[in-house]
């Protein structure tokens, strides 16, 4: 008996302004699994992430995306978020003047409302925040500042994973979370992500380098080139890629 997958992408063709970027991408993600999506710059990884999260401006010309048995592409981005989809941005966006804690509380309460749960008050929310903060060794002062405003590259990435910890998604998509992190920060973030692994949720970890996969150990590794997945395997594929380079795959595929 097979369970309903969390995410099922079937022959997805999509582009922007008439330019096709995804050219027949197929990928299935089951609960409890961590998938790594690798590929050279420009292969379409961020485009896939944006389409999954529901960013405006992409045209899907062919294929389907099913999330927990429902048509994902039919949902507004905020509905996807409330249904448990979370995207950790490659380039997190600054929102000056909007307090980080306030922002995150508003987001969490939208999600809780959607799930029929009661909204958290300031006290309960703060308790939750403190607990999750330990996970990422995040300084409390970051939360007093405006959303991502003036954060260093590393702080932004950590703040993204912190949001993920608080919002507790079913499908987390991490877009190049490792870029801009030094090795210590990378370890902290990776440990945080690992602690968030649950049997009923899944992670899609997008990365360019194998480095992150030393700490977040994937169950499946996919290599993307020119808008589609050209090779899939287990974690050894990432190592192979590291030693042989992308050329090897691109030639053999």
């Amino acid at each position, binding site marked *: 008996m097979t369970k309903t997958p969390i995410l099922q992408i079937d022959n997805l063709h999509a582009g922007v302004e008439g330019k096709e970027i995804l050219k027949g991408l197929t990928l299935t993600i089951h609960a409890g699994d961590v998938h790594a999506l690798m590929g050279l710059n420009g292969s379409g990884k961020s485009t896939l992430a944006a389409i999954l*999260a529901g960013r*405006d401006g992409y045209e899907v010309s062919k294929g389907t995306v099913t999330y927990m048995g429902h048509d994902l592409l039919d949902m507004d*981005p*905020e509905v996807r978020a409330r249904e448990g989809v979370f*995207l950790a941005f490659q380039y997190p966006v600054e*929102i000056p003047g909007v307090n980080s804690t306030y922002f995150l509380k508003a987001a969490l309460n*939208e*999600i809780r409302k959607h799930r029929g749960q009661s909204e958290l008050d300031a006290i309960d929310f703060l308790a939750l925040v403190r607990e999750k903060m330990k996970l990422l060794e995040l300084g409390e002062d970051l939360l007093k500042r405006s959303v991502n405003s003036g954060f260093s590259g590393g702080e932004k990435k950590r703040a993204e994973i912190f949001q993920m910890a608080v919002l507790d998604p079913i499908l987390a998509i991490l877009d190049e979370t490792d870029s801009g992190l030094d090795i210590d920060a990378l370890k902290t973030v990776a440990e945080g992500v690992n602690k968030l692994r649950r049997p009923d949720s899944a992670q899609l970890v997008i990365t360019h380098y194998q480095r992150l996969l030393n700490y977040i150990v994937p169950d499946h590794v996919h290599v993307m080139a020119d808008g589609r997945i050209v090779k899939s395997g287990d974690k050894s594929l990432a190592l192979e890629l590291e030693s042989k380079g992308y050329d090897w795959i691109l030639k053999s595929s």
Partner: protein
Amino acid sequence: MSTSTDTIESLVKQDYKYGFVTDVESESAPPGLNEDIIRLISTKKQEPQWLTDWRLKSYRHWLTLKEPQWQFVKYPPVDFQDITYYSAPKQKDDAPKSLDEVDPKLLETYEKLGIPLRERARLAGVAVDAVFDSVSVGTTYREDLAKQGIIFCSFSEAVREHPDMVRKYLGSVVPYTDNYYAALNSAVFSDGSFCYIPKGVRCPMELSTYFRINAAKSGQFERTLIIADDHASVSYLEGCTAPMRDENQLHAAVVELVALEGSEIKYSTVQNWYPGDEQGRGGIYNFVTKRGLCKGRNSRITWTQVETGSAITWKYPSCILLGDGSKGEFYSVAVVNNRQQADTGTKMIHIGKNTRSTIVSKGISAGHGQNSYRGLVEIRQSAENARNFSQCDSMLIGNSCGAHTFPYIEVKNTTASVEHEASTSKIGEDQIFYCNSRGLETQDAVNMIVNGFCKEVFKELPMEFAVEAQKLLGVSLEGSVG
């Protein structure tokens, strides 16, 4: 999926909630402007001769002036002979002695606007002077304030009851020769508020004037004069609305503030005059002269304004920093949408030693709105060690609006330090998508982003009015300033 720009634009479109007309019988002067009309206004108000003469002098000066053209706004010429300069709700006998005698229809009007005047319902902690067209219909909490020697009444009453003080200060900050609209106002001003805070008294509540234009084709020309004596302090708030009409209506007020030694005046405006419709029909022309004089040492004047209404806004609340060590501050949020135009900013004139000024201006443009910041920082030769900091930020919503910045800096003393920072940002689809991706609706996202942008200004407003201002930004915000 619609583009998020469309969504944002539809969100900032909202109906004007205060557009109703009150059906009261009013007594109006015939339209048109001449010396007889001015004498009529003066007689109606039982004014002393010196004031009638002052009005006539102003009128004659006005006749020699031309309407200014330099501001970055466009509108057809105003026909000053087509305006009614005096309109007042008819009273049974004389002026009502107390609020109980005020026409219930008027009280109802203010209730509908959220400004209850009746004793039982009046706002706690805020004394209100309600001005309806050309006259003040009532002032709350007067007796309580009088116990501390604070005078808070309509301008007409002040002329009758405190003529010496009015005579001493009227025109002392904004002379009738100052500019076209100030001259016009000096000739025809009808009513407004007067307050005096005696030496050493901190005014225990917010003082507030609520202006309402009701009559068609009438102009509103009110005059406000606030004097804080040595070491006194007061916080004052001005609010305003008008019915929706297809013609443009003129509002040309003058506000004068005088701060004596060690005193503080905080003047906050939440301006919500009818802005006209989507095509730009109707709306108020808001041509206002506001100026404060920091006369005494270490005095301080703070202007905070949230400008969301009017078809055209043209105003520069300014500070003359005469006293050594005095401080002037200007915090402004100006929002334009549809066909609205705003040309607003401030002037900080440093004359005394060690004077300081701060300017924080936030302009938000949506629809086809045009928003200009115009500011002058002048450091005179006498102003040793003067300091100024200016920050002007603009936010654009959509592609058809505009933001413009015109900073003027004149420094005549080398010890001065003047800093100017400016930025323009577009409310980003990135920012909205980021919020969406965390579960927030676009409307809530826009509210949050806009409020975040205005935060530095909102924190200067008295608490209750900060909430009001957020609502006025065009969307119901529900405490989203974090």
